[in-house]
């Protein structure tokens, strides 16, 4: 007997990628000004359910677990290092902390083309 509502792991494994792709998890071309045929606003759980032939509540559970599941806990550890470096670099070097690499690449490309 199920103690509280959760999805069967097999169902979860089968649908998690599709559910995530249709949800807000990865947001592609959300901007309101984009032409209708280009915009990809995410679907609601009900809409995803209709598309995949699943109950709305099952979709919701799959989505909630998949949101947590997509990246492991090590990604959260890595996030601390990422932010510490980014924040301190910016305090020291300003905008070049993020742009210098791309400016250098662009210069390299320029010199390649001139050769």
């Amino acid at each position, binding site marked *: 007997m199920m103690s509280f509502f959760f999805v069967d792991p097999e169902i979860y494994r089968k649908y998690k990628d599709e559910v*995530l792709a249709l949800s*807000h*998890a*990865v*947001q*592609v*071309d*959300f*901007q*309101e*000004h*984009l032409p209708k045929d*280009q915009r990809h*606003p995410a*679907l*609601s*759980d*009900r*809409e995803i359910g209709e598309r995949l032939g699943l109950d709305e509540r099952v979709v*919701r559970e799959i*989505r*909630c677990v998949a*949101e*947590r599941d*997509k*990246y*492991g*806990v090590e*990604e*959260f*550890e*890595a*996030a*601390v290092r*990422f*932010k*510490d470096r*980014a*924040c*301190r670099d*910016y*305090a*020291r070097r300003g*905008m070049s*902390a*993020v*742009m210098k*690499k*791309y*400016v250098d*690449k*662009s210069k390299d490309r320029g010199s390649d083309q001139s050769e």
Partner: protein
Amino acid sequence: MADPEPVQQTRRIKEFALAAGADVVGIADPRRWDEHVPEGCRPDDILPRAASVVVVGTRGPTAGAWRSPDHRVMEVNGYDFRNDAAIHRVADLIEHDYDRYAIQAPGLPTAGHLPPFSMMLAAVLAGLGTRSLAANIILNPKYGLLYYSACITTLELEPDPMLEQDVCPHRMCVESYRRFGKTPCLAACPVEEGGCLDGSIDADGRIDHSYYDRERCVSRAMNFGINSFQKALADIVAEADAERRDTMIHSDFFSRSCSAITHYKESVAQCFECMRVCPIGRAERKLQ
């Protein structure tokens, strides 16, 4: 010509919201939601006969907090919820002085990351900003990043026009994209280096493609909190060795996850790196 009564009411409510602590205020017509979100996510679904949506925005962190070289300062201390306080006062005013229903629109997640009502969309539809390349964050032309709250009401008010001009990309970012293939925000968190963002700008200087990996963003912007707590707990429960389990429970990572849950209201945004380099609103953050 607009009905003078809604015009006067609108002016009074806007002035009141600004005096209550809002930095910006805008009004949206609830019908604007029809084009953008499915049934169930519109103002009418939250308050029947909704006639207007009042949206307020506040700056959150001080300019000094943006200057701190320690990213944790803004994570723990970024937000004073003045927008919620202001919107509650607006709702009180409408119910008390105009005898119309008024509620705070629900912006907290109720299923996974999804709230019943999107504050970001409300801000766009109330003419307070447009969606950016940086995690789709709504940028206001004057302040850049703002925190938004909304009040749904049955009171008829004069809606503001939505912004015609995109706030993002800033002309400096268009130039940067053309020369180096990146805007500052895309360079700060590039998807090809394990970040969250990608996108492109067309020949007219408008966003023509955007990509945002929200779950990656969650690992940074909600670094310590419910997510990390659940993940660490899953590992702890699965650990068979009691001694190892004890050290996991008392680890700095798990302790901070627990602390973040307890202070989650104050610590809800924990990554600002794409916004730190955004030129929009920077003038407002430049002090002595």
